[in-house]
């Protein structure tokens, strides 16, 4: 696949031209944090960011999304019939996503895009979006991507990869979609040998900053019910306040609720992110709640990510090591610690 070199001077022009062809999204500084947003101007994008506070999952699975619409108007012959809502599926380009976040979409694909059932909104957005990643020269302290099978320059979830080599970017095509994108860029030049060398150095130094936190394979070998019944959950759940921040920020937490909203005689059926941290998530109409205890909910989150997902799909854990849940948990619950507890083999004296 082809690669080009784009100087930082020319980069805004390149972004501007891309904006003429696609809806372009990128990390934008908003308030106190970076967030993925549709670019209104080519200089809005800030590729000096470390990572966004919210994961970019909302670009494919919006926080709240209208699924259908309906009328409840008296006399309307179509009243009460739920119908598709129009949506914009024009071509999109996401610029500067971290490789871990892009990898998360591949982990989510197994849920939304199966051989038998396809989520129509997720799959169409995936098909009409190209993702250009940005390699991580300087991982954050809460990151652990290399422990979960990805890495700071992992191209697996990307169509193209940007590497910031100081004065400019190397843009490498990864997929056909990425190649097409590169073919349309006229402001790039051949990659100087010094830039290639710098990129290799940056990658090596980034990768060297990680220590292996835990081994997902060791989790795969553990017995599910043994882990489920383990005594350490009591310790893990002790400080949790079930705020749901971890699930809200996590790029691989996809659970959602479906609710109807009505205004006067028009209504929408919408889906909204939900969280296994909340007691209402599982409560039956009868009042019976299979996960009424905090311990059960905390255990569900970790078991689903680290064990159930792995046992169901046999392709690693449902975690890309972005570290958001570690960084933003108000009571400092650390998924790396939990994974270590889950893989520990020591037998404590009775």
């Amino acid at each position, binding site marked *: 696949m082809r690669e080009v070199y784009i100087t930082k001077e020319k980069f805004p022009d390149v972004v501007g031209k891309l904006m003429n062809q696609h809806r372009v999204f990128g990390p934008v500084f908003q308030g106190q944090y970076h967030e993925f947003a549709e670019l209104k101007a080519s200089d809005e994008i800030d590729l000096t960011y470390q990572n966004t506070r919210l994961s970019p999952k909302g670009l494919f699975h919006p926080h709240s999304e209208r699924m259908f619409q309906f009328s409840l108007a008296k006399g309307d012959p179509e009243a009460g019939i739920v119908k598709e809502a129009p949506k914009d599926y024009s071509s999109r380009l996401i610029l500067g996503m971290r490789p871990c976040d892009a990898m998360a979409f591949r982990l989510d694909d197994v849920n939304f895009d199966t051989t038998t059932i396809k989520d129509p909104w997720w799959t169409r957005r995936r098909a009409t979006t190209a993702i250009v990643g940005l390699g991580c020269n300087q991982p954050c302290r809460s990151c652990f991507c290399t422990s979960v099978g990805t890495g700071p320059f992992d191209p697996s979830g990307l169509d193209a990869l940007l590497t910031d080599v100081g004065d400019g970017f190397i843009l490498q095509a990864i997929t056909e979609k990425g190649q097409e994108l590169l073919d349309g860029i006229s402001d790039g030049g051949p990659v100087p040998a010094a830039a290639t060398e710098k990129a290799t150095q940056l990658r090596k130094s980034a990768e060297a900053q990680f220590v292996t936190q835990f081994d997902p394979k060791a989790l795969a070998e553990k017995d599910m019910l043994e882990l489920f019944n383990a005594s350490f959950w009591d310790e893990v759940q002790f400080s949790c306040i079930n705020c749901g921040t971890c699930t809200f920020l996590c790029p691989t937490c996809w*659970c959602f609720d479906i609710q109807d909203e009505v205004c006067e005689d028009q209504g929408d059926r919408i889906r909204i992110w939900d969280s296994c941290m909340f007691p209402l998530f599982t409560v039956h109409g009868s009042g019976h709640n299979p996960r009424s205890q905090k311990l059960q909910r905390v255990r569900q989150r970790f078991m*689903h990510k680290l064990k159930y997902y792995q046992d169901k799909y046999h392709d690693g854990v449902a975690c890309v090591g972005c570290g958001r849940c570690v960084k933003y948990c108000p009571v400092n619950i650390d998924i790396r610690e939990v994974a270590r507890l889950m893989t520990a083999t020591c037998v404590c004296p009775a």
Partner: protein
Amino acid sequence: MNNPYLPYPVRIESIVTETEDRNLRTIKLLFLNPEDEEKFKYIPGQFAELSVAGLGEIPIGIASSPTEKGFLKFTVNKVGKVSSHIHNMQPGDIMGVRGPLGNWYPWDLLEGKNIVIIGGGFAFTTLRSSIVYMLDPRNRSRFGEISVVYGARFPGLLLFKEELAAWEQRDDIKMHITVDSTDDPNWKYNVGFVPAVTKQKAPDSENSYAIICGPPIMIKFTLPVLTELGFPPERIISSLEMRMKCGIGICGRCNLGTEYVCKDGPVFTLEQLSRLPNEY
């Protein structure tokens, strides 16, 4: 591409109050578009999402049998927003149905076997579907002896009373209807809890499968009886209830270990359940 979240529009043909406490009503639904009925090909044991625009959806077992053409039947217990609204709807009203969803009872495995159906309370709906399906002249010869133990707290809570009476008259199905208690001097069936009646009346476990659906307390006390009668866990089949939204294994709500109850269940054998977390 068919949108798996989009309900088929249906019209309510009739609403029948099933029980004395008026908490259970059976709605009969007709598809507005005949081609939707073609697409809705179901097998006993499956469920569907009943949709009321403006209120939402509820997952309910299908009470009709695919051998009954032209309509769908659901027996709805009045518990929440959507089910209470459905209770107050009128024939002619428009609502939606999405499905069929989930797995069915394993009819291929059940072929040539004796089958004992054990039901309690309002969980009898997919069991009604199964009985009608098996008794259909085209199907009856595929199965061995069919026995049914069906219990309710008192006679007024039994569902599908006319059909129960008709099945009582047949010689190709053994009915064991029971109530916990009754002061009706004309009550001609059993009095006693489902586990006790099962112990007396269940067929020999040899070459037999048990399908059991009911309140957790009934299941809890009936399972040891079945084990005692010699039914191995892989020949005891149950159906789980769970809070659900999408019904197609995407929204994550009904996750139980490696399974989604909506898509990988709701029908599980006791053997399968023994390998899953006990969180239902």
